[in-house]
């Protein structure tokens, strides 16, 4: 706060922030539905999976396509309800509809997004590596608790990041958040050990390979389905891990690319700071 702010205002603000965090923490136990009580058929994605947002509720009631005046729109196509875990060979097959738009229907858009992130990371590393290096100053090393704690937390965070991008077609999340979570884990390693440095050449190779994998998957779609980034794999049963065709493959590539890129950016910034 401002330097002339009275001490009591700062304390009230701090108490308010801590209070909100505590209330949010305990709301997890009181307000959230338990896992086995959630009816997946009533969630939002159930309506969007049908690709017909306006009449979604009417379709649920009547079992056919109606417009607003309740006149049947199509009699030739029978309405088949999509059931989580049962319906097979759908057009897209991803239970998480955001993912099916981001990776499948607008896959080319996402390729551009990955390119933007790549250019930004290249710019950061180009600017930061041009500096003159000096001998590292003597610093206070992190404590033993920090060293051990960050290493334990890193394994859990790394596993969670991988989970987020492998299950991108089933649960919220995907390649970009998963990669960012992995990079935050590596940031923790930097905090825990003085002079920690990941294998920079390995990060570069990893990032380039996963970026190439994205383009190669797109070209395979061009060869097999006559369209760049077309889904060339069977979509399987909605809700299974091995479903939704190539979405999981692309999200694994994006997750590895974003994770190694953001780790390399963090590495460039921290190492230069330490060697100033």
């Amino acid at each position, binding site marked *: 706060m401002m330097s002339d702010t009275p001490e009591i205002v700062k304390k009230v603000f701090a108490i308010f922030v801590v209070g909100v965090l505590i209330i949010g923490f305990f709301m997890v136990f009181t*307000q959230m539905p338990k896992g086995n009580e959630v009816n997946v058929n009533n969630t939002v994605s159930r309506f969007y999976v049908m690709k017909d947002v306006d009449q979604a509720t009417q379709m649920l009631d009547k079992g056919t396509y109606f417009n607003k005046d309740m006149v049947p729109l199509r009699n030739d196509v029978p309405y088949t309800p999509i059931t989580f875990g049962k319906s097979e060979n759908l057009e897209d097959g991803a239970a998480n509809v955001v993912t099916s738009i981001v990776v499948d229907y607008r896959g080319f858009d996402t390729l551009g997004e990955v390119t933007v992130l790549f250019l930004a990371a290249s710019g950061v590393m180009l600017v930061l590596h041009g500096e003159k290096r000096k001998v590292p100053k003597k610093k206070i090393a992190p404590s033993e608790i920090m060293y051990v704690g960050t290493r334990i937390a890193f394994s859990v965070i790394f596993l969670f990041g991988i989970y987020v991008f492998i299950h991108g077609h089933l649960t919220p999340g995907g390649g970009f*958040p998963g990669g960012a979570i992995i990079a935050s884990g590596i940031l923790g390693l930097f905090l825990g050990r003085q002079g920690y440095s990941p294998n920079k050449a390995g990060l570069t190779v990893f990032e380039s390979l996963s970026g190439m994998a994205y383009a190669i998957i797109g070209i395979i779609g061009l060869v097999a389905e006559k369209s760049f980034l077309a889904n060339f794999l069977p979509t399987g049963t909605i809700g299974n891990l091995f479903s939704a065709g190539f979405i999981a493959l692309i999200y694994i590539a994006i997750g590895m690319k974003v994770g190694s890129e953001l780790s390399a950016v963090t590495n460039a910034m921290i190492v230069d700071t330490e060697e100033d």
Partner: protein
Amino acid sequence: MITLFSTLLVILIVAGGFVSIFSKKLLSSVISMGLVSLGVSGLFFFLQAPDVAITEAAIGAGLSTAIFIIAMKKIQKGGTSDDE
């Protein structure tokens, strides 16, 4: 309960924004920006957008706060010559 908590989150976001603008210390500005991101990600979660909430929490509240703090340290070291 959720309405009350959302109201608290909105107050938190506004207060964090005021602190980050009017604070004289750069460090408290950066940390309150992370606080704003945390509140926004909570609001996204209650507005049925868990995808955006996860991204906001990982990038807005986690990585960008850390990178701001690192950059701030770097600037302060380069800016003052009588540091050592």
